[in-house]
């Protein structure tokens, strides 16, 4: 069991390209941390630096209390699960799982015990004599997990382990990995670009962009209180609506003004917005915080907006409407029982308790 500490980590490649700049991150012992972000954000590079597969250009990396910058991967007490499974194709499942232990000169009977125990947990006992090519994607991924498990490492590193699986299998493996974490009580660092995996599996999510941590928080906090527009847009599907508007002050009240609408903002925002009177800001609202039900209009018809519906999508549990208010595009996730059809205008209310106001220039959160 070990904590991980990344201090001022920098990664510059030989061609001079810097992908990670001054990264600071503390991962606690037994924590399940997710590194998430779009392609090229440096999440895999960070994981590979923890594994020792990439050199660290600058900064310090600790696993437990040990500085591991110059420690080889085999001596870091880590195990890694790769996106491509990286199973040894010429070895049987049993040999794949036993390989790491054999290299560490673990007695044969102990290897056998551990391999069989891991195989039982992952339900791959009957495939132990098979070669990886005779297994399905999900089975291969379980073998890769088993290979990591038998080593009983202090840290588990998982690099997009589910992205080669189909949607159904991914859901199944997601819960299996979460269960595994609960069972093993070990530090897990998990890289993904899939926000559903991030939201459902992690104790804590680190959202990255261009080698910089944009926010490091619990899934609930990331969703409800994103600290910048990037996180707000990245987490949540469909993504948050961003509406450029102007802050107007009328007596003690602040309004977000766009097109012909003036949305009255909650009083709790007054202090933060006082510096933004008559200034342009970005109003963020999640699709599910837009309603057609009259009770949300709160008796204030000023909060009602008229949306021209371009597309209406029924997915079963959700009903998405994609529409426009003059030049502004808006997505709303409304009740599946709604009768709204495309090419019509509907009245919607924004739940002002759940809106977020961002600075236009810095894109940082002003208030929510």
């Amino acid at each position: 069991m070990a904590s991980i500490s990344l201090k001022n980590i920098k990664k510059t490649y030989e061609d001079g390209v810097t992908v990670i700049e001054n990264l600071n991150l503390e991962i606690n012992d037994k924590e399940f941390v997710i590194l998430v972000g779009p392609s090229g954000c440096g999440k895999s590079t960070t994981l590979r630096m923890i594994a020792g597969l990439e050199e660290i250009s600058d900064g310090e990396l600790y696993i437990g209390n040990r500085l591991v910058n110059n420690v080889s991967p085999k001596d870091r007490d880590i195990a890694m699960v790769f996106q491509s499974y990286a199973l040894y194709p010429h070895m049987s499942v049993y040999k794949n799982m036993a390989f790491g232990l054999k290299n560490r000169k673990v007695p044969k009977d102990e290897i056998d015990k551990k391999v069989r125990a891991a195989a039982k947990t992952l339900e791959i006992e009957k495939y132990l004599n098979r070669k990886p090519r005779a297994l399905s994607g999900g089975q291969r991924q379980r073998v890769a997990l088993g290979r990591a498990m038998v080593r009983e490492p202090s840290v588990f590193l998982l690099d997009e382990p589910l992205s080669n699986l189909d949607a159904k299998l991914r859901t199944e493996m997601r819960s299996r990995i979460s269960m595994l974490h609960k069972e093993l009580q070990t530090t897990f660092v998990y890289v993904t670009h899939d926000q559903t995996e991030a939201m459902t599996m992690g104790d804590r999510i680190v959202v990255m962009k261009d080698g910089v941590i944009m926010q490091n928080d619990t899934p609930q906090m990331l969703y409800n209180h994103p600290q910048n527009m990037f996180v707000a847009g990245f987490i949540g599907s469909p993504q948050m609506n961003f509406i450029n508007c102007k802050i107007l002050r009328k007596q003690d009240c602040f309004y977000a003004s766009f097109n012909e609408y003036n949305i009255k903002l909650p009083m709790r925002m007054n202090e933060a917005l006082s510096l933004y009177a008559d200034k342009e800001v970005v109003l963020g609202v999640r699709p599910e915080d837009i309603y057609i039900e009259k009770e949300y209009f709160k008796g204030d018809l000023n909060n009602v907006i008229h949306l021209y519906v371009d597309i209406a999508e029924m997915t079963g549990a959700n009903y998405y409407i994609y529409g426009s208010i003059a030049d502004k595009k808006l997505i709303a996730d409304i009740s599946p029982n709604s009768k709204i059809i495309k090419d019509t205008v509907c009245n919607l209310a924004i739940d002002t308790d759940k809106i977020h106001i961002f600075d236009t220039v810095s894109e940082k959160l002003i208030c929510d």
Partner: protein
Amino acid sequence: MKDGKKTNVIAFTVLLFLSALFLFPIYLVVMNSFKSRFNIVSEPFAFPDSETFVGLENYITGIESSGIIDALFRTVFITVGSVLAIVIFTSMTAWYITRVKNKYTKGIYYLFLFSMIVPFQMVMFTMTAVCIKLGLNNIFGIIPVYLGFGSGLSVFMFSGFIKSLPKEIEEAAMIDGCSPLKTFFVVVFPILKPTAITVAILNAMWIWNDFLLPYLLLGTNNKTLSVAIQITMQGAYGSINWGGFMAMLVLAIIPIIIFYMFCQKYIIKGVIDGAVKG
């Protein structure tokens, strides 16, 4: 559909003709190996009849006079040694230059490619002189020379295959506690098996049949099969024992044909893997 059939028939006829053309010299050699030396010269294309058929006489005199048994062992030693050296060293080289990417490894790779297009005849005299100076003119010394000549194509083929291997397998081995050497021999090399077999077969065939290099380096004291056949069957004043010559040729090509038959499926597979995935 009809056009396709017609094309097939034409292609089959052309290929049949080409096969016959290539097989004809072998047919001539086998057929003449059972004829007396004078009949071979006067009627080289005639099938042996009761008058010209000499049975195994050519084989017996050939074996007795050519020292082919010694030459056979020598050739086996040189071929096996060279092929092993080529397979081990070139696969390691290809792995290194494919995985460690910098201007030096790129340069080395192009050097190997360049070595493929330099004809042997261009370097044979200078190289022979250098090899003799270095003391490589013996059956042990010829192995590194073959390694040099065989490495161009072999490195090219191995590199093509290694490029298609996911690097993560090697990284997993590193995390599992392997040193680079162990990673290569325990994880990478077994995966390279199909290409290694192809490289081995292709090199074995030309080294087995090579005449010029052993002739230049080993001379007539350490004769390999091809040299033994050529030198010993040549009598005084330009006379040639054609019967023995043909019989020894048949004996020389039998092992390599058997070897090829066993391994031909790997040749096709390995060449395609290297060429396509590269």
